[in-house]
């Protein structure tokens, strides 16, 4: 599959472009190198991936992202405290196995159909119960935020999971800047609606109403684990993974982590969410990972951690809140989680 990539933001990096080991041996020299090559973005971003020890096979594309993102990618630092030490899903799995129905419903459709997706320039609308609503360039949205490298578990509602190193910043920091009013109880996110670029939005046979929308309660949105991601594996986000801006909420099923966000709206009432509208008995607003509450059509007690070998499938027990119970369980104290699934 991967051999059939077209070019366009997805050119593989030549070995000669990768920063030599001596450059990133210590943090200070790494930073100096990143600063001195700001004009040569390719070297800048690849050095980060190398410094973090990420294994990106030479025959797979790296995603560069816009020029203005390069210094941010290069200066990103690992948040070890919030990162799991579990084995990473290989880069290949992360960029070729995606649920992004705007680009097709098969797991391999997004990587095939999203390579020409235009993610720069990108505007995000901030609206609703905030003191500073408006349309903002993504560059301005990101300007004050330093990127962190965080390794999270991602548990799909379909009962498979992966461990992914994201690059992003806490959603809380972004929200604070736009000063939500006292009426802001929920945040709703909207994915781009663009039938020209997103073949999945053109189909007649989808029960999802486009654009895709998702939402969080304010305290969930402000939680330090909740991440706005702009990259993974030390590089910019690939389009199939939700470039240029996506949400990552690691204790919830993957569908909550909405991709390619164009609107962030603050409201007093609980916003509509796409899967909940499609099948309300199957997908709730909260969608917290919960081994005790089955999907009506399958069990959620276990998951297949990818990569999974054929003859000995990698089946592991699913943990409450995807293993983040210590950090987030208190948000739902007193709530009946079988009712608020």
């Amino acid at each position, binding site marked *: 599959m991967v051999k059939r990539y077209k070019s366009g933001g997805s050119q593989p990096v030549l070995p000669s472009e990768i920063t030599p080991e001596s450059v990133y041996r210590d943090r200070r020299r790494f930073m100096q190198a990143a600063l001195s090559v700001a004009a040569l973005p390719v070297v800048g971003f690849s050095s980060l991936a190398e410094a973090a020890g990420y294994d990106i096979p030479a025959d797979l594309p790296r995603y560069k992202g816009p020029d203005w993102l390069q210094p941010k990618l290069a200066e990103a630092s690992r948040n070890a405290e919030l990162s799991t030490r579990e084995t990473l899903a290989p880069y290949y799995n992360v960029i070729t196995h995606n649920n992004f129905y705007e680009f097709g419903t098969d797991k391999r459709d997004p990587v095939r159909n999203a390579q020409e997706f235009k993610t720069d320039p990108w505007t995000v609308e901030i609206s609703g119960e905030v003191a500073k609503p408006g349309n903002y360039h993504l560059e301005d949205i990101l300007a004050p935020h330093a990127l962190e490298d965080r390794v999270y578990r991602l548990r799909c509602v379909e009962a498979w999971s992966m461990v992914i190193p994201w690059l992003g910043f806490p959603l809380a920091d972004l929200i604070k800047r736009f000063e939500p009013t006292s009426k802001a109880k929920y945040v709703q996110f909207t994915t781009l609606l663009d039938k020209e670029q997103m073949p999945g939005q053109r189909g007649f046979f989808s029960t999802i109403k486009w654009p895709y929308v998702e939402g969080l309660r304010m305290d969930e949105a402000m939680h330090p684990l909740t991440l706005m991601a702009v990259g993974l594996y030390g590089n910019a986000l690939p389009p199939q993974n939700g470039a240029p801006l996506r949400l990552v909420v690691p204790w919830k099923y993957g569908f909550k982590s909405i991709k390619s966000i164009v609107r962030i709206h603050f409201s007093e009432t609980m916003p509509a969410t796409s899967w909940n509208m499609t099948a309300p008995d199957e997908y709730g607003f909260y969608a917290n990972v919960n081994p005790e509450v089955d999907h009506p059509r399958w069990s959620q007690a276990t998951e297949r951690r990818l990569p999974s070998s054929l003859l000995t*499938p990698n089946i592991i027990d699913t943990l409450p809140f995807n293993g983040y119970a210590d950090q987030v369980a208190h948000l739902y104290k007193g709530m009946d989680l079988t009712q608020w699934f």
Partner: protein
Amino acid sequence: MVSVAPMRLFRWWLFFLLLLLPLGRLVEGLLTNDLGADPAKYIVKELGFWALCWLWLTLAVTPLRKFFGWRWLMVYRRMFGLYAFFYAVLHLLAFATFLLGWRWDMLMTELTKRPYIVMGSLALLLLLPLAVTSTQKMQRRLGRRWKKLHMLIYPASLLVLLHFVWQIRSDFFQQLIFAILLAILLGYRLYLKRRS
């Protein structure tokens, strides 16, 4: 293989290899490591899809023969049916091996928690006696009862459709196509029966 005219032999091998092709492509993908990031799921899905196709093809033999007068097609009905069964068995084996690792506790959970798996299993159970009695010898021995027994393909196909429809997440294009095809294939039989 009674009288072996070259044309017929050619046609027999053509069908034989054509229906084997999807399996060949899976094996090739497996050997070249080109089945994507989740080969287990992919293999199970593909085998199921082709089992479904061959079952529908088997059901299409009689309508095609009667409508277009293609009497030669009749010879291949057994082959199509056995291929459908073969792919369905591989589909189940791949599911139990690649997705569940033959963990019996998991198998029980899946059977109780995934209703569509019950539908698929029942369909395969119904197809089993048809595969067993597919030989000419059995056909002769069972006489008139053979035809009656092999009408089990109708409930089996409905269960297979249910197995497929029950898995819809959002896009139902494929399910719709197969439902329409089955409606035509079974409806044509009802129409003929009513007319006679």
